[in-house]
């Protein structure tokens, strides 16, 4: 079953006085994702529509957008499931706009790197699994796909441009939780300031929109507990 869906798409090109919205009508069936619809528009109606994508299966974290006001990976959102006759598509918030649906992720990645999180972690799933011969055990990588949805959804990132943000602090908590090459002190120190973990006001939007169940909010709370614990101990003269 195919349905004609109107897309209200955020448009902006460098040098434009202001952003605006363009409307496109795209025939969608039950398998059409928002990303596919955007690619259809680009192919058939407006080749100047800019967007980022790669894998089409929620692994690469490049196609994050705001769909009807909510942060999503556009590759796994089916248009007809949204149930709205018009679908609004906008770029992520809280990162500088480059063009149309594309934002500059540099600030996001830079924070993430600064947290110095080890990308390989202890595999906690399926401990009984028997790895193939020649491999000691399975290697597990971090869940965070660095899509930036959390930063876009965060109300504090919406007002403080220097806020470290959910993903970076979740990474910092990982560095504390499983330090591997360090002792995690760097990460704790890094988040302990006015634009770090104390700025969070537990709106939990980061964890709500995270497509990988990283639960950044819990990471930030754990950082706080750790820092409060050690500052209370210091208060009583105990150093840890």
């Amino acid at each position: 079953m195919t349905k004609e869906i109107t897309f209200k798409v955020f448009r902006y090109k460098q040098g434009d006085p202001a952003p605006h919205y363009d409307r496109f009508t795209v025939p969608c069936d039950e398998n059409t994702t928002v990303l596919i619809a955007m690619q259809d528009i680009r192919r058939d109606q407006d080749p100047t529509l800019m967007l980022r994508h790669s894998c089409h299966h929620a692994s690469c974290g490049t196609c994050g957008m705001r769909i009807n006001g909510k942060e999503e990976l556009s590759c796994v959102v089916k248009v007809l499931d949204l149930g709205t006759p018009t679908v609004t598509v906008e770029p992520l918030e809280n990162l500088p706009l480059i063009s149309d649906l594309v934002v500059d992720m540099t600030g996001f990645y830079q924070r993430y790197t600064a947290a110095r999180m080890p990308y390989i972690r202890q595999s906690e799933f399926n401990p009984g699994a028997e790895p193939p011969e020649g491999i000691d055990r399975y290697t597990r990588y971090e869940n965070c796909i660095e899509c930036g949805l959390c930063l876009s959804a965060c109300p504090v990132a919406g007002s403080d441009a220097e806020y470290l943000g959910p993903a970076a602090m979740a990474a910092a908590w990982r560095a504390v939780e499983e330090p591997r090459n360090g002792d995690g002190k760097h990460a704790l120190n890094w988040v302990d300031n006015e634009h770090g973990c104390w700025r969070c006001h537990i709106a939990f939007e980061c964890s709500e929109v995270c497509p990988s169940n990283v639960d950044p909010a819990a990471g930030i709370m754990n950082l706080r507990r750790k820092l409060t614990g050690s500052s209370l101990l210091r208060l009583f003269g105990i150093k840890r």
Partner: protein
Amino acid sequence: MQDVQSTQDTVRPKRPLLAWFDVRSRKLGSWAFALNRLTGLGLVLYLFLHLVILSLLLRGEAGWDAFIKLARSPLFLLMDAVLIFGIIYHGLNGIRVGMVGLGYGVRAQRGLFWTLMVIGAALLVASIWLVFTI
């Protein structure tokens, strides 16, 4: 001082009021946060107002007792109800913010919120009944 790049966007400058209070398509946590902020601001305003009004006491009996008469008018009692709502909400959500912020009950924060709100609703009804009957 700056160790991270700013996320400021020249095309879409930060709009704090929208970021904090536009809860369309947002979830429970954002509503709780926005309402906490609103009630907090209201209570700060009230605190200063309260101090100013109390200074009437220094001006003697006539001024204060005239104020009391005014304060017992239905409009004032209605405003009292709004004030009490603010106190109860901010206080009870504050328990959640404090607990979760210290790392306790993070995963149970939704249940915690609604449990506190049920307690709050009961307290609110009882308080408003007191305000209008006492």
